[in-house]
């Protein structure tokens, strides 16, 4: 693997000039491209000045390249707690206990190993990286999902000693055959979920289940730094421009600010900030309370859960909460590879031509984020609009989340997606990991993305390969 770099503008700033010595040896002779299809200056720097250059298995574990000394210290500390295994309270290891009582995993890194992407369980294996969200018709006080009365808003397959776990889900797949326009066959796998064992009685009538895989987590802070009006400017709920793509912002409850704001994180953009997402995962997935989410998720039906000892109030101190949030905000996005390669450039043109870039928006500019000048004012290439789109019946989970309906999903950021296989050693994509690689992920696209999917299906084998190579380069 070689880094290629052509020229860099004087405006790149001190942080990127810093790389000049290292990068100078790495350019190739340079095949000139017509401006129309050539590489855009700086397009390899997916995270702007935060971008790191790493193609190893550690590619998602780096602090932003321009991070300050203080934020690097926070990063190292947050990393520590991200990887920490939580244990049952009470334990002699002070500050390390409070797991559960109900939980899905014992550490953040159990699902986001090396800050990478989780994978769906093998047949008969436990659900760890794949979370099952639950709700019943109706909404909570803030318009969010209404938890299943006995099980709450997510299914916890594990529990500490003395507390019954919620049960055992199972996953099976049915293969669905299809073919490209040129006759080449493919097969997609359609997942089906069941609950052969439920510890607290049957689900309430109308219970909705939405599977969610743990995503890779580089670049979250930059997404938080994009100004709300930049996101709202792309909203086109009634498709006024008649491009077949609507784009809707989720409006969600900000627990800290106690107000409704634009959602950005989670598979349906149901969470407004990295901090709320992180603390929500600590509470819901690991059972560790914080000042943001102070109670363990025990329902009225779960007496043992409610009676179990805890690891303090809250179990995660505010200091640790800050370290972890700063860590999650400042994980860097790795630079693209091979962005000047002719086939990759051809793939990029095809991506654009098929309309993919209509939602997977290549370039955004961040606004300002309090206390993080490193993330502010950056030109980033996240390949997302962070908006909700109808993705068709094939991908629908049928479970609303704030303004998102049962067919809508947030456009997944595609930056760093080409390194998922390197870091996480698999390429199971989409919200539940059903897609085995990029091609299947594209082929699952329906609804607003149906026309783009169809264009991909009609491409020649060479063009499809070029498009996939472009995705690999991200």
């Amino acid at each position, binding site marked *: 693997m070689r880094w290629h770099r052509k020229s860099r503008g004087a405006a790149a700033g001190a942080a990127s000039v810093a790389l000049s010595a290292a990068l100078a040896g*790495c350019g190739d002779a340079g095949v000139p491209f017509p401006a129309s299809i050539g590489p855009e200056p700086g397009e390899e720097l997916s995270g702007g000045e935060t*971008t790191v250059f*790493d193609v*190893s298995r550690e590619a998602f574990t*780096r602090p932003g390249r321009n991070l300050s000394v203080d934020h690097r210290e926070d990063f190292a500390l947050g990393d520590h707690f991200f990887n920490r295994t939580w244990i049952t309270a009470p334990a*002699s290891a002070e500050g390390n206990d409070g797991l559960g009582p109900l939980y899905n995993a014992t550490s953040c890194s159990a699902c986001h*190993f090396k800050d990478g992407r989780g994978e769906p369980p093998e047949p008969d294996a436990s659900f760890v990286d794949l979370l099952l969200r639950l709700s019943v018709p109706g909404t909570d006080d803030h318009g969010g999902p209404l938890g299943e009365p006995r099980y709450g808003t997510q299914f916890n397959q594990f529990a500490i000693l003395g507390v019954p776990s919620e049960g055992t889900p199972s996953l099976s797949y049915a293969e669905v055959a299809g073919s490209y326009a040129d006759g080449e066959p493919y097969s997609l796998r359609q997942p089906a979920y069941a609950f052969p064992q439920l510890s607290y009685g049957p689900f309430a009538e109308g219970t909705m289940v939405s599977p969610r895989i743990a995503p890779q987590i580089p670049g979250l802070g930059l997404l938080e730094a994009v100004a709300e009006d930049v996101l709202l400017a792309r909203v086109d709920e009634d498709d006024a421009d008649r491009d077949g793509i609507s784009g809707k912002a989720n409006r969600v409850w900000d627990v800290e600010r106690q107000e409704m704001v634009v959602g950005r994180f989670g598979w349906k953009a149901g969470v407004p900030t990295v901090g709320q997402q992180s603390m929500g995962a600590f509470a819901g997935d690991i059972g560790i309370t914080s000042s943001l989410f102070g109670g363990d998720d025990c329902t009225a039906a779960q007496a043992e859960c409610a009676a179990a000892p805890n690891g303090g109030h809250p179990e995660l101190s505010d200091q640790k909460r800050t370290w972890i949030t700063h860590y999650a905000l400042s994980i860097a996005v790795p630079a693209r590879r091979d962005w000047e390669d002719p086939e990759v450039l051809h793939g990029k043109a095809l991506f654009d031509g098929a309309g993919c870039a209509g939602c997977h928006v290549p370039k955004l500019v961040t606004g300002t984020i309090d206390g993080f000048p490193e993330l502010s004012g950056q030109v980033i290439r996240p390949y997302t609009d962070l908006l909700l789109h109808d993705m068709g019946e094939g991908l629908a989970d049928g479970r609303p989340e704030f303004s998102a309906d049962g067919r809508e999903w947030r456009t997944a950021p595609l930056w760093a997606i080409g390194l998922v296989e390197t870091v996480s050693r698999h390429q199971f994509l989409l919200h539940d990991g059903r897609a085995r690689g990029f091609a299947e992920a594209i082929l699952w696209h329906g609804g607003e993305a149906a026309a783009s999917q169809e264009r991909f299906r009609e491409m020649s084998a060479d063009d499809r390969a070029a498009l996939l190579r472009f995705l690999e380069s991200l």
Partner: protein
Amino acid sequence: MIASRLACPRFGPVLAILLSSLALAACSDDGDDGDGNRPSSSSTGGGGNAQAVIDNYAANVHANYEQVLTGVEALKNTVAAFVDAPTEPNMKTARDAWLASRPAYLQSEVYRFYNGPIDNAETGPEGKINGWPLDENFIDYTDLQPTAGIINDPDTFPEITTALIAEQNEAIDEKSLSAGFHAIEFLLWGEDLDENGPGARPASDYVTGPTGSADNQDRRGTYLQAVTDLLIADLQTVVAQWQPGTAYAAELTGDDPIASLTKMITGMGSLSGGELKNERINNAYQTKDQEEEHSCFSDNTHVDHLNDAIGIQNVYLGKFGGNDGAGLDELVKAVNPELDAQMKADLESAIAAIEAIPTPFDQAIVDEAAGGGREKIKAAIDALQKLTDTTVDVATALGVTLNVE
């Protein structure tokens, strides 16, 4: 030390690297691409002989890794003797050999962080050599989990070999470390359950038959020997890459001097400001977690910290062992004698500040007394940050702009 399920619950065996971007971006096989951004060779070293400095660096790196290998080969012999005759004196001899092998390895850590042989993204064995912290339960029994670990799971792992240990390293997550110095350390010392001393594993853990303690003593002995063999094999690959005039050594000494100087200084800055200051000292200082120490089973962490810093000084001065050749100091002195003096002073201050931390480190981090452990540790953190800042100035003076703030 207090008991918990993880003796050193700190993760990321190949830890966050301060200057990873720079390190990985630097490649060495291209010519000038004419982008006008590379400082010209004539600016290199500010008038000094940069090539001599780089050649001397490569020779020192080789000598350093050879010394590590020699130390670990000595360890292998003591381990073999101990497993053959598992007595307390033989165990002490093996522990002493482990302790004796550590300074040279820690001094070599300044050669990390630039995608060189030790931590090359594809082939570097660093995670198998010095991965930490490790979950002891992945390897062997602990106080709370008496049947844990590969050693006590003959059904899943019928045969313990170097290949198995290599394959199991990080098999589950960051802490499921099966290999390296710290795995050997755990097998020789055991869990550190003593506030005032290191782990106290009895030699009888390796005694088969009725007088033995724990289970699977023979498998434990096999594991200890195999993991030591694996460490030797991994170190040999690194030594081979640094063989003078060949492989990576030839690449480095034949490359544009700026690219090679960048690597040298990247290693220094990444270790001082990132790995040593943040991961190994500040994390423990901030969390007051008594299990944060790097060599937690043997309570040898202070030696690790000190030799990391000595390694940085070695690169700056062009020293290793008895050799004191051309160093970065000579290049800096030629362009900015005040800066050279400052850098030398900062190196001395950082070393002195680390030496001043009372031992064991896991007690120093909770020692709040005036003039006590925490004060001393904070002083060392500040000294390492100052050293890192000055390292950036050194880089700038030599035409290398480092990406630290």
